């Protein structure tokens, strides 16, 4: 139902906006992906790009500019013209990286225009071979009996910040241990060297379905509609963990709000296509349906949350 509304809304809005900005796009649109080719953000962007070429009738170029925890590609975006022909698809890393990188060459609020929340899904806490409990309540008890090691994808990654958030919210006597990327964090958990890992549904559910790791909690106040069998952290009595993982679209700072609205609508139309909907189902994720202004509020809230957390735990430069 949501989809139909989103699609209908998308079409109406793109028609209205087309009137306002009839001259977009006038040429090829470059979408910067601040990660390597073949990763989940890259494949998502490429799939959307294929749909957008149909909608826009213009070539969509995916440009991979990985490095510095997505900040190299993000910096490249801030240097482009805000005419909508250069866009960025990034994950929540765009809110975590500024919290730890002192040498950032742009202002995350001034130099970036949040346009659209494309995909959203909750963070899931999964336990590996050494964790006995099967849900979050059990895990909280188990964590009082022995030292737990929360594996992350690296210092400053969203898995790191979420782990710290859980440790603080639940007052766990646990430690984080950093690995080089999510893959290594997951193998170490499967091998029983570390205990848990936190990431979005798309990254962890395949291993949960394989029976290789256990989904302990959806980190949210309520259960997640697409994964009703997994306990939520809120249910287990842990409050203050209310942040979702996402993939979102950004433009350079100071973009015309009308243009941002139009691009938002065009992407909503692309996300509503059957192939994108299938991708969302496969990844236990939901398409976002926020206006640029609504998404900007979430963006700056998350920036601030991570910034405060980084200060509190003494992380970064």
């Amino acid at each position, binding site marked *: 139902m949501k989809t139909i509304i989103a699609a209908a809304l998308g079409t109406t809005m793109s028609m209205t906006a087309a009137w306002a900005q009839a001259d977009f796009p006038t040429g090829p649109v470059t979408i910067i992906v601040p990660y*390597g*080719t*073949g*990763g*989940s953000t*890259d*494949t998502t962007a*490429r*799939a959307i790009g*294929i749909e957008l070429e149909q909608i826009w009738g213009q070539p969509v170029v*995916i*440009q*991979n*500019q*990985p*490095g*510095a*925890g997505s*900040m*190299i590609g993000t*910096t490249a975006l801030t240097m482009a013209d805000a005419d909508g022909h250069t866009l960025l698809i990034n994950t929540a890393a765009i809110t975590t990286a500024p919290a*730890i*990188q*002192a*040498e950032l*060459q742009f202002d995350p609020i001034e130099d970036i225009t949040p346009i659209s929340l494309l995909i959203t899904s909750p963070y899931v806490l999964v336990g590996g071979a050494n964790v006995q409990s099967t849900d979050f309540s059990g895990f909280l008890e188990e964590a009082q009996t022995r*030292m737990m*090691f929360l594996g992350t994808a*690296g*210092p*400053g990654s969203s898995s790191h910040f979420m782990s710290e958030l859980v440790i603080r919210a639940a007052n766990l006597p646990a*430690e984080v*241990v*950093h*690995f*080089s990327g999510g*893959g*290594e964090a*997951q*193998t*170490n958990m*499967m*091998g*029983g*060297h*570390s205990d848990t890992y936190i990431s979005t549904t798309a990254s962890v559910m*395949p*291993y949960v*379905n*394989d029976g*290789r790791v256990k989904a302990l909690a959806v980190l949210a106040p309520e259960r997640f509609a697409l994964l009703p069998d997994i306990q939520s952290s809120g249910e287990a009595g842990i409050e203050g963990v209310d942040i979702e993982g996402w993939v979102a679209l950004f433009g350079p700072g100071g973009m015309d709000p009308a243009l941002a609205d139009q691009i938002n609508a065009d992407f909503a139309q692309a996300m509503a296509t059957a192939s994108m909907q*299938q*991708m969302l189902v*496969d990844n236990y994720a939901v398409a976002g349906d926020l206006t640029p202004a609504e998404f900007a509020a979430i963006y700056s809230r998350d920036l601030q949350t991570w910034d405060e957390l980084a200060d509190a735990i003494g*992380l*970064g*430069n």
Partner: protein
Amino acid sequence: MELLGNLALGLNTALSPSNLLYCFLGVFLGTFVGVIPGIGPLAAISMLFPITFYLDPTAALIMLAGIYYGTTYGGSTASILLNIPGATSSAVTCLDGYPMAQQGRAGVALMMTTVASFAGGSFGIIILSLFSPIIAEYALSFGPADYFALMLLGLVAASTIANASPAKGLAMVVLGMLVASVGTDSQSGVARFTFGSMSLLDGFGISAMAMGLFGIGEILSSVGNARSTAIDKSSAKWRNMVPTRDDVRRSWMPGLRGSAIGSFFGALPGTGPSIAAFMAYAVEKRVSDTPERFGKGAIEGIVAPETANNAADQTAFIPTLTLGIPGSATMALMLGALMVHGIQPGPTLIVQQPALFWGLVMSFWIGNIILLVLNLPLIGLWVRMLLVPYQYLYPAILVFVCIGAYSVRANPADVLMVLGFGVLGYGLRIAGLPAAPLLLGFVLGPLIETQFRRSMVLAQGDFTTIMARPIAGTVLALTALLLVWSVVSAIRRRRRLAQAAQGGLGG
């Protein structure tokens, strides 16, 4: 019997005309990319990745995999002929391959590396077909402490790979480890030696390092020099490409050991063909009765690393396909090709997509056979490449190195890094310092550091728990033994030499 059925299914899939075509395309492109210094498998596969959206997943994976292992076949060509590694994993092949070429044995060296690549690849495929699930489970039992011990053993074993004085070799290993410390600290997230540059936050890339030190270093030092050895045209003749009986006799055991070492390191996530090649070379030099021949054109010195890197290429698919976890950036691309089509690699892949899994495995065989057939006649052509005057050849290589450096991350800073390492490589040559130990320290240093620090976090600072782990404890004990043995044998050799010198004076 089930295995035979699976193999038949795989063969059936791999031999379908379109899959056969993609396999051929992949390995052909791979060989080509491998021969050209600078453009490695990561760059080539990244460029071709978008095609996978429009291909059947099996065909896409067959082609991308073909590029991957095809590169390792071609990689040794430039190492042998020009002293410039065509791919990072064939940097070690320079050590003995280039001296062979200077002795007019380029044809033999190319022939042997092609056969060695085929043998190593085949060994890796057998391991992959028979033991994938078991090995994947076993690899999971390797924790940070075990990796630390293993990499330390590797460092101790391989620190003497260069034919320089131990002091110079060791100094270069340490320099390599220091260079590798640039970048984000693995546990605290603090930027180390980056001087505010975002491009340095991820540290230096291994391919930038290898291409700069070996490739650009070689090119710079050749400027103004007349070609040191006239390449004998006749080495391209079939008669001069056939290895002698002595070559073949010497190659058997290094090939087997290389295959085993390569298969082991390939299957461990986080290590790979480059480390495998280094280790295989180091082991051969250690077990050889005549270690002094290494670095001067020993056939074992090219057979061991070339079997090892090809075996590692094949077994690298074990964690990728059976766990769904890529061990390297290139493997992450392979995984991406599957995910694009909604196929989730993991333990269930073999059961749910038998045609894909076994088709891919059988395509490896076919690809390796195509590579063998493709590469043998090409040897003559590659050797003739040396007849191209260096004033044309080297600028062309320089261009390819820069394109290769730029294309992976689209970051101009990467080109500057390659050139910087080139100047460093040139300086090392002038000072008579070996570059190979530097690369070794660079590859192993960060692994040793991060795995050690991780294991210390997990052990809560208690070093004895590392010793108590079965794998780590055993490997550390072996490392200590090796260290003692190296020192003792060095002292003995020195005594013997001194005695011989005295005897010589007396007589």
